[in-house]
């Protein structure tokens, strides 16, 4: 186990290295943010002056070297917009995004598991049709549209939930639903197909031949097995989930990484972009790692 972990962690290094290089290249070709930092009526001299003082006139390799040097010390440079070290700014937003993402995940799981199981066990029944049909429909709707509609319906018209912002649990409901239902759609389909496959396995037949009640056959014998592929794919969805926060956070003015990133991208605040991409990549990798470990815990067949 320990060795396996170490090996997996070592694999992360080249990945992060590649990511950092790609991101750096992007930033390099992005050109400089100087002009954006000054108002519309700034003059050319002003721009030159600022560029010089920010060290943006160095050649590629020097800049890359400086960047890597900073990187190993977890220093992504200063945000041009905030005039502060980028990483702390990013990390400061992380809890909000995690809160949203986790809530979305929980919603997704809470919806997907019963529906997935249900539609698998009642294959081709109306329930199955509704669950799969609903899942597909949900997947087909753009996230932001759903978000805006939810606000109009549940906040403006019905007044059940606050419109936006982060605060108590009620604030979390709409954005988490927006983000979570999309994931749930995918997951329902996944659980369904995974369950269908498991239900055809010989050991399910064995369990039934023992005279166990159907309920237990499904929830004890089948579901645990069906969970294994779900765990891995769910981890793979982390990236989609984080991507989804970009849109959802903007709609609901949720003060998380997504909003920060979008603004950073729009203002060419590349230090923030770099730091966020890095942090997000790290989280995604971490999630996959956790999924791997979980996978091994769930499945005794796999040895370390």
């Amino acid at each position, binding site marked *: 186990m320990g060795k396996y972990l170490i090996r997996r962690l070592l*694999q992360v290094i080249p990945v*992060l290295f590649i*990511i950092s290089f790609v991101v750096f290249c992007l930033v390099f070709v992005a050109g400089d943010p100087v002009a954006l930092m000054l108002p519309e009526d700034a003059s050319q001299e002003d721009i030159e002056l600022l560029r010089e003082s920010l060290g943006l006139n160095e050649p590629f390799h020097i800049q890359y070297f400086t960047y890597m040097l900073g990187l190993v010390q977890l220093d992504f440079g200063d945000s041009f917009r905030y005039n502060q070290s980028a990483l702390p700014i990013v990390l400061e937003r992380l809890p909000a995004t995690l809160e949203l993402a986790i809530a979305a995940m929980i919603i997704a799981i809470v919806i997907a598991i019963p529906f997935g199981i249900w539609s698998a066990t009642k294959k081709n029944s109306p329930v199955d049709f509704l669950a799969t049909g609903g899942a597909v429909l949900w997947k087909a709707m753009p996230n*932001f*549209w759903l978000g805006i509609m939810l606000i109009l319906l549940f906040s403006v018209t019905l007044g059940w939930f606050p419109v936006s912002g982060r605060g108590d649990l009620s604030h979390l409901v709409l954005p988490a639903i927006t983000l979570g239902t999309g994931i749930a759609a995918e997951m329902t389909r996944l659980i369904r197909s995974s369950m269908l496959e498991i239900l055809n396995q010989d050991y399910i037949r064995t369990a039934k031949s023992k005279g166990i009640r159907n309920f237990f056959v499904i929830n004890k014998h089948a579901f645990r097995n069906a969970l294994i592929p779900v765990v891995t794919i769910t981890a*793979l969805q982390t990236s989609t989930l984080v991507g989804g926060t*970009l849109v959802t956070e903007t709609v609901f003015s949720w003060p998380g990484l997504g909003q920060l990133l979008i603004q950073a991208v729009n203002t060419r605040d590349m230090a923030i972009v770099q730091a966020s991409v890095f942090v997000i990549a790290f989280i995604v990798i971490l999630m996959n790692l956790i999924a791997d470990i979980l996978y091994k815990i769930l499945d005794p067949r796999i040895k370390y």
Partner: protein
Amino acid sequence: MSVNTETQNQNQVVSSVEKKQTTNGFVRWMRLLLKSKTGTFGLIIVLAVILVAIFAKYLAPYDPNMINPAAMLKPPFWLEGGSMEHILGTDNLGRDILSRIIYGSQVSLAVGLAAVALAGVIGVFVGLVAGYYGGFIDNVLMRLVDSFLAIPTILFALVILSIFGPSVTTLIVVLGITNWVQYARLVRGEVLSIKEREFVKAAKSIGVRDNKIILKHLLPNVISPFIVISTLSVATTIILEASLSFLGLGIQPPTISWGGILSDGRDYIATSWWLATFPGLAITITVLAIIFLGDWLRDVLDPRSAK
């Protein structure tokens, strides 16, 4: 008993038993298609959308970019104030929404298809090479894949688009290069398992060259999961384009895309709902159709359902 009589005997059996099964591919597909209601729906809608995109010029009642200050925010015909002149109403500049949706299909489909095609070509190639040769090449390529997978597509697209400016071409290229990893992974996984199948061993033992093995034995066998995934990917790409429009980095006017119309219309959702609802419906229905089509293809291309 001699071999020959044995064969004849057998032929009889087989021909009587298998006659039904050996109908040609197209007929089989159509049979399977008609059996699946959702598949039929998917195919019909997708074909319709493709036709609409191709013949937009002839189908659209108006120039989609024609501004008409006299007819701004006209509702669809069945509402008060609407007229048959603008069946689905007009937008805030008096442009005909139906025409815009018809034209929008071009870009939305083109982006979806082209991006997926690009990603597919790269991904399948990388996946085949990595899976077949394994070892160091595989390791390097897979680390690259891991890296790409760790960055959410939309984020990657956002950064690149903001740098290079959003045009149809950049969008296609960006979505292409962010999506290839998905195929590379899929194809590699398939190759790894197919590689162990005995027919690959058989080919090797005959002395077939590597490139032939990849092209003739591996590629045809990974192509059907690929097709299934890529159909679904066309759907996600259309939605992604809409999301990028929402974030301000989608296709810019005067080029029209569904995502663009939808996201422009969102300020009017509360007052003039038709601006955002119709393109939203167009996206939803098309995506739905593509997903259904994909599901159906999954069944059709699975030799196990070949009966």
